[in-house]
């Protein structure tokens, strides 16, 4: 304050003015000085903390190998945590790792000797130095697949089955879409919006659920909304940049290809999350890889292909461009499956699900104007029916894969 007043006085007293950057810098320096002296003095007047230390550990990754269980834990509480002993199913076990206190936000790998039996449930309790227990459930013990080339190949195949192929198939509706009258096309666009709306809600809910299970120190549920905001704003920026470029070149009417690209990106982000979930589920043994599941996913995701081509019914994109759109939307499922199976992290997954939801929301905003016919207010019954049909379609095909 004093420095600020002195500067102001100088400015008034002399003919010259302090440069703007200096005026911006002074409060910043004062903040740094205040924080520095506050912490250097050890927070004067605050006294000691009351009560026992707050011990929180989040288990980020569980790997089961014959005769051993590996847990990667992260301290997401305010105080260091010492894991003194480990109990598995009510028996003390020997383990390696976490020899000293685990500091805030740092992580440790515990390697626990346990002759686990396939298909059985285990409860691992970490007994801390203060006597607290942090327990972790392993609902079904199955060996974690080794991350070798064959495994990544399988995950890629899975990603192609559930992501790339169905979307490519869905895009084959393009010739048909070109033939139908504009009113019906609007209904089809409404159907697309319905599909996307369902996906946005679904991704948000799943993200919130994952965030709740993961480490809270990185923001928990806030990550989902952060992800959504980032994706929404990023896509808004990209789309306005694209439309500016196009306006400079050709005239109007070139909005559709950009829109298709945005939809592809949005669906791609969503499929990244979907692949992530599939990869993780497979690794933890929660996923039975059956033909039924793949068929279910295929039906479900085919509708996503339709969503991409609906806005470009009037234009004539090249085959290569269509293939690129399909890959942008579908291929992230492969990437997601790889990440999910090898380095899953709830916080990252929650952020990605949020990003998927945000991207889709942005696409919906972009598509919304096309649902209205020229000079009309409100939505046509046909459009409303399309919206509802989209939701219903996603809901019912979703049932196929949530048996």
């Amino acid at each position, binding site marked *: 304050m004093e420095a600020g007043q002195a500067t102001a006085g100088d400015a008034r007293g002399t003919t010259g003015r302090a440069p703007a950057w200096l005026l911006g810098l002074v409060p910043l320096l004062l903040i740094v000085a205040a924080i520095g002296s506050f912490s250097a003095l050890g927070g004067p007047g605050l006294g000691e903390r009351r009560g026992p230390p707050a011990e929180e550990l989040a288990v980020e990754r569980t790997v089961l190998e014959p005769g051993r269980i590996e847990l990667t834990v992260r301290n997401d509480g305010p105080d260091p945590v010492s894991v003194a002993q480990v109990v598995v199913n009510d028996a003390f076990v020997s383990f390696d790792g976490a020899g000293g206190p685990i500091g805030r936000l740092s992580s440790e790998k515990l390697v626990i*000797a346990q002759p686990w039996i396939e298909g059985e449930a285990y409860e691992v309790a970490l*007994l801390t130095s203060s006597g607290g227990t942090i327990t972790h*459930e392993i609902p079904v013990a199955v060996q974690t697949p080794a991350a070798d080339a064959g495994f990544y190949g399988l995950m890629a195949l899975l990603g192609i089955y559930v992501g790339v192929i169905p979307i490519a198939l869905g895009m084959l509706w393009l010739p048909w879409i070109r033939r139908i009258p504009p009113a019906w096309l609007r209904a089809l666009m409404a159907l697309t919006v319905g599909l996307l709306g369902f996906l946005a809600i679904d991704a948000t809910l799943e993200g919130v659920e994952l965030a709740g*299970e993961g480490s809270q120190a990185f923001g928990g549920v806030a990550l989902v909304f952060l992800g959504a905001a980032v994706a929404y704003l990023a896509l808004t920026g990209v789309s306005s940049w694209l439309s500016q470029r196009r306006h400079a070149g050709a005239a109007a009417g070139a909005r559709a290809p950009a829109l298709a690209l945005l939809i592809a990106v949005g669906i791609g982000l969503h499929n990244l999350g979907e692949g992530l979930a599939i990869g993780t589920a497979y690794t*933890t043994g929660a996923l*039975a890889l059956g033909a039924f599941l793949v068929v279910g996913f295929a039906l479900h995701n085919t509708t996503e292909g339709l969503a991409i081509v609906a806005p470009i019914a009037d234009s004539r994109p090249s085959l290569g461009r269509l293939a690129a759109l399909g890959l942008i939307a579908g291929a992230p499922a492969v990437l997601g499956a790889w990440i999910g199976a090898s380095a899953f992290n709830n916080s990252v997954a929650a952020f990605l699900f949020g990003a998927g939801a945000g991207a889709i929301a942005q696409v919906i905003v972009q598509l919304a104007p096309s649902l209205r016919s020229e000079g009309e207010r409100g939505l046509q019954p046909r459009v409303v029916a399309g919206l509802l049909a989209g939701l219903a379609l996603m809901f019912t095909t979703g049932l196929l894969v949530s048996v």
Partner: protein
Amino acid sequence: MVRPQPLGRGRRPDPERRGKIFRYAIISLVIRLTRRRLLSAVPAAGLGATALHTAIPHSHGSANAAEQHAGAAAAASLGHAGGGHAAFRGREVDHRANGFDPHLILRDFDEGKVSRLANGRTLREWTIAAAEQEIEVAPGVKFAAWSYNGRIPGPTLRAREGDRLRIRFVNGGRHPHTMHFHGIHPASADGVAGLGDGEVPPGGETVYEFDAAPYGLHLYHCHVRPLAEHIAKGLYGAFLIDPADAREEADEMVMVMNGFDTNFDRANEVYAANTIGFAYSEKPIRIKRGELVRLYLVNVLEYDLINSFHLHGNFFDYIPTGTSKQASELTDTVMLCQGQRGILEMRFPYTGKYMFHAHQSEFTELGWMGFFEVTD
């Protein structure tokens, strides 16, 4: 028993939602937290973990069973695996810092300050002080305990049938405490609230005086509300009255079976005899072959309904409550509820190491096990 705890955050996988796993993985990263979370007043959403267990189809007949077995052998080399038995990880508990060692408590009998009354009877006097002290109940695990005379269990008070006993009790804790003796005595010396001096306030003291009767193995413990907490924190000990005509000479030892609830969920995290789990398996109790061993066994375990003692490679004569000279049973396993106790007498015909433990396997692997090492 590590009881399933209320959720701090996250969710336990709900069986009904398991289907959803197929679409978006509901990963098993379910974190349930302890008192730290509870302190922040998260309402408990207690669901049994067993429900989960039953809801999951079990696929037995594992294809990689052989592989798992091989892996188990490999994993045995992990850390120090306690010779294949359950064990704590890391160094021993710091007995010096604790102020007591289960190996010393084992054969430590306190006969008090002995004098003779005018009528010729023996008078035994003790001063017992309650205190609050932090002890290490397992390597690296601290527990805020309450103790009699700085040790858990408290001193083993030993008298002879018919002696006059005078116990001065000083409360050095921050909560009211008492000493409640099992035995035959007037109500005023019972050490419960509202009788005699009742609860002894912090800094206060009282004297319990009564005759030693009946002969047998008894116990004493604090009897202040909340009872479970006052006992579970360590306020108990063995109280032994020898018959007027002494029992046969023997290698005598005391084991007070107890446990500790370190996370205050009213279930024990650690089980033991004489407080420190695995103490007698890390370092076996040495005894001589053919020598009569007399074990005074008391169960004070809180929160669990029963406890037990099982001996390997041998049988013992069992005298319930020690109130007879005739054994009631030759057995290798006895079951005791809280407050129950008895005398075990045995001789080992062979040398070698013989395990003893609670025959609740869970208690065994949570600390309550040990070895006799028999030598010539």
